[in-house]
């Protein structure tokens, strides 16, 4: 029996050796499958031996069975490992076939744009909302009363001639500034008032620096204890927020019928850093807004007590801000709506 066992073992060892040398060169899963069939498939030597177990003597059978199964297990485990290995390689190969030129252009999402005027309005709105302001609105078709009279421009006031007004009829006009919103808002609300009012305004003028329609933002703060220093702080902080902290600001006394004292606010020229250039007409300064302390006369029109409250108001030209911020040199561009312009913002 010993002999028989040894003979069986040597046959199986030889078979395993054959398996090892066959499997050594295997490259693909199908080659591996062939080998699997050859060595542990139905017609393999190992399977044949196992099939013939019944013919063996009872004493020899368990030992022989154990030996054959060991060989079979050894082969099958080996195949399992190799299969794993080849699978990984083949998977990798498959992925590598998916190669593309990653520098080819991607499929872009078409980009639209908010108008630069809207963007600047929203930027200013966010700034003032942060300071506790609300947004007020008013009609573009206004009455003489709100556009002029209640803003301290009685009929025949010389300052009216500074506004080239479009009229709908004798008393109805297109607002020449956003300031009428001040009156409309104060009529409906008691102090404290903190509002800004963006909107379209109209004047009869058309050249490189004037369009018959333009955009303003009005600001108004009326409260107890507001003073000129607060006015300066608010506008200085605003201008720094829009143009950057490095810009200098000056308040130049001016005249508006509805503020007293009135000021024009200039920001230092960015092109020449204040030394004077064509952009700033060699002054080193760029005018950006008109403002002042609310003239107490206005409070009479809206029923506030001028001894109780003070306030300040300002008006900013949006296109002017955009021109200075982005170096746009022709006001009319804003309304030409050339897509090459619109797509830049």
């Amino acid at each position: 029996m010993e002999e028989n066992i040894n003979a069986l073992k040597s046959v199986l060892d030889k078979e395993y050796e054959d398996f090892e040398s066959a499997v050594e060169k295997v490259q693909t899963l199908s080659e591996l499958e062939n080998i699997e069939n050859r060595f542990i498939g139905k017609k393999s030597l190992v399977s044949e031996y196992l099939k013939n177990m019944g013919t063996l003597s009872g004493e020899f059978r368990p030992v022989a069975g154990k030996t054959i199964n060991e060989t079979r297990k050894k082969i099958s485990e080996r195949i399992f490992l190799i299969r794993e290995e080849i699978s990984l390689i083949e998977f990798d190969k498959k992925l590598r076939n998916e190669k593309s030129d990653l520098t080819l252009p991607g499929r872009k999402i078409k980009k639209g744009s908010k108008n630069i005027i809207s963007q600047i309005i929203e930027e200013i709105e966010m700034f003032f909302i942060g300071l506790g302001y609300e947004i007020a609105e008013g009609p573009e078709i206004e009455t003489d009363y709100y556009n002029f009279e209640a803003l301290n421009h009685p009929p025949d006031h010389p300052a009216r001639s500074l506004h080239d007004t479009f009229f709908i009829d004798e008393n109805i006009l297109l607002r020449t500034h956003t300031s009428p919103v001040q009156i409309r808002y104060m009529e409906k609300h008691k102090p404290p008032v903190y509002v800004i009012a963006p909107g379209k305004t109209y004047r009869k003028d058309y050249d490189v620096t004037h369009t018959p329609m333009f955009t303003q933002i009005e600001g108004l703060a009326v409260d107890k204890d507001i003073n000129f220093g607060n006015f300066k702080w608010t506008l200085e902080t605003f201008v720094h927020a829009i143009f950057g902290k490095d810009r200098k600001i000056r308040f130049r006394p001016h005249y508006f019928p509805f503020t007293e004292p009135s000021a024009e606010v200039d920001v230092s020229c960015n092109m020449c850093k204040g030394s004077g250039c064509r952009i700033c007409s060699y002054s080193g300064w760029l005018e950006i807004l008109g403002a002042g302390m609310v003239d107490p006369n206005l409070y009479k029109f809206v029923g506030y007590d001028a001894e109780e409250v003070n306030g300040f108001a300002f008006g900013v030209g949006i296109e002017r801000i955009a021109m200075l911020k982005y170096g746009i040199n022709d006001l009319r561009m804003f309304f030409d709506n050339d897509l090459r312009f619109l797509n830049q913002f």
Partner: protein
Amino acid sequence: MKITYNWLKEFIENLESISPAEIAEKLTMSGTEVKKVNYLGENFKNLVVGRILSFEKHPDADKLSLCNVDTGRNLLNIVCGAKNFKADDIVVVALEGARIQDFVIKKSKIRGIFSEGMMCSEKELGISDESGGIMILDDSFTVGKDFAGQAGLDDWVFELEITPNRPDCLCVLGIAREISALTGLKFKEFGYNSEYYANKDKKFVIDIRDYESCPRYSAKIFKKIDNYPKTPLWMKNRLMQCDIRSVSLLVDLTNYVMLECGQPLHAFDLNKLSSKKIIIRKAEKEEKLLLIDGSEKSLDENDIVIADEKGPVALAGIMGGKGTEISDETEDMLLESANFNGVSIMRTSKKMGFRSEASNRFEKKLDPENTVNAIGRFEEMLYRISNVKSDNTFYDNYADLKRSRRIDLRLSRLNDFLGTDIKTEKVSEILDLLGFKNKTDGEIIKVDIPTFRYEDIEREVDLIEEVARIYGFDNIPVRKPRTASKQGKYTDEQKFLRAIRNTLSEMGLNEVINYSFIGRKDLLMFYLEKEKDYKDYVKIINPLNEDFEILRTSLIQSLVRNAKDNIFKKINDIAIFEISKIFKSAESDGQRKSTEKNTLGILLSGRACLKNWDIQERYYDYFDIKGIVESLAEIFFDKNDLSVNECEYGFFHPVLGGDIILKNKKIGVIGKLHPKIINNLDIRQDIYIAEIDLDTFIENISREKKFRQISSFPPVNIDLAFIVDEEIKYHDIEKEIIASAGRDLQNIRLFDLYRGKQLEDNKKSLAFALELNAIDKTLNEKDIESLIKKISEQLSKKFQARLRDQ
């Protein structure tokens, strides 16, 4: 307004201690904006005074002379074309390097002979229009010395912007007073008043019919004026620098005095007046007057005239009459120095479409106390120039207006208002410098308002402004306000509007902004005259031109214009939107009322998709624009709230246009622009348009958003196709499916629309993908089957729809 540095020096002691640039800065920072400071000498370099020693004819040119000119250091040979000189004349010589009318003088040969300079005419120097010959100077000029310095041209010109509240600053004296206040240098005032009141005369009558039109009329007669010399060169130059042309001594003097003290003057030829009486009155209706400029004006009772007994001789404050104009032959002159009602002058000048230096000043309300100063100054200057004394009679009619005012200025109010801590002494000092007499009484400063500031200083706050601007806005400390007493925020409506703008721009559209105006032409182009909705437009009575005549009743015309403009520039792929107001006019209670509404317009044209290396080109069509509207609506509304009803509009393609319906209400229009309009516009691509009433859209947005439960059971996806008649609208079928499927239907999508061989004529097949899911269970086969049955039966009943076999 322009004034010069040397002129200011006459009225401020020691002004030369401050440079013109510093003065400009101080004026600008106190409210008198200096637009420019210009050094004149720059334009008059290399001009020297010379004397013609001798001259002879040019050997090769009859019309030219060869002159030997002494310029102090050198004797120059100068070829000259003028004839008006003789030996010994003193002339202006432009040396090499001088710039005359934009060309630079250099030594050059003229007809073969070297000319070493040029003798100049007044016109060539820019002093006057006189070009009849070279300028001959008088003996007061020193030969060999620089011309500019001797002619008053070594000077600086300030270009100022005077705000309308400061008529007192429309003159040299007014600005001098400001500079004095800003620098503390002493201001030298006129004082002609007392001297004149003593010599009032009544032989010549000044009859003011209406003191409201003319509170004061002062006058003086100058005799034998035909003997006066010509205007001195320095005065001509000064006027020229202030943009006033020299005419004759007397006219020049009226202008000079006006620039100097702000009071307009007018000179009449006394002997051409029909009477020894001047009448100031309102014009009569249709009264005529021939003005100095040669135009005849028809007047009415709103115009103020100066008249003699025969009729008007001048339009008060605006222009004199031709009949009484002074000329070289005038012997005696009546000089008018009057004060007229500013509003009347403004109205008349506006009506005539004519503004002059005088009317511009009168409009802003001048000080009647100043009329006498102007006459005194005129007389003094005339004497200085001519050395002729005029008689000392003076005529004056003055409705004494008692222009005195005292205002109490509370120091605490001033400091509270400005956020400052300015001391009484400082306030008082500033007021003194400005010419405001004042007295301190505890914390109150009692301020007397001078008559020249009577119109603009009426209240305490006006004084606070005066103190603030002289103290310097820059010196007022910046103070952070106490924390805002309100919460800053957008209203819901404002939030929605901005969200709509954001959404559209993120969808790939560009936001445009157009003028609110359009022309009648645009309406015609869109066949809108007939459209009932577009008839009641708001019209501007004084439009810029006919293209800006009407306020938009729709954004469509402007958007189409934007498309056209871009297409003309070869920018063909356009997806734009605008959010703006449109305006309509409606009759209510017998009155025309304008309404304005926020409106959204969208326009698509050209390619939705460009051909890319792996993408096919695609052009926009109706379903692109509808998709945009639907996507927008779905952000704010239920999917089923929005639909489109076919409807014909003149500007839309006859079958590709309709109304946008939101919650059963029309809120806009959508469609393909009518091809005939496209043809008329000379473009060759389709245009798709939608317009939505944004106010109504936003109004309908629910302010509260509620969470809807999500099912935790797996969904079932089924496809159903129905065959229906061609006429049946998709929307109706969809509505019916949604209604019959009930709440388990989560999503419905039309994934195929088929017409063709497999179907009978006039039939179409609609294939839907339905996503079904119940909130409380997994839907089983039986549930699904019964749902399909319910839908099919309903569609069959309503539309004779047939379920297509899968």
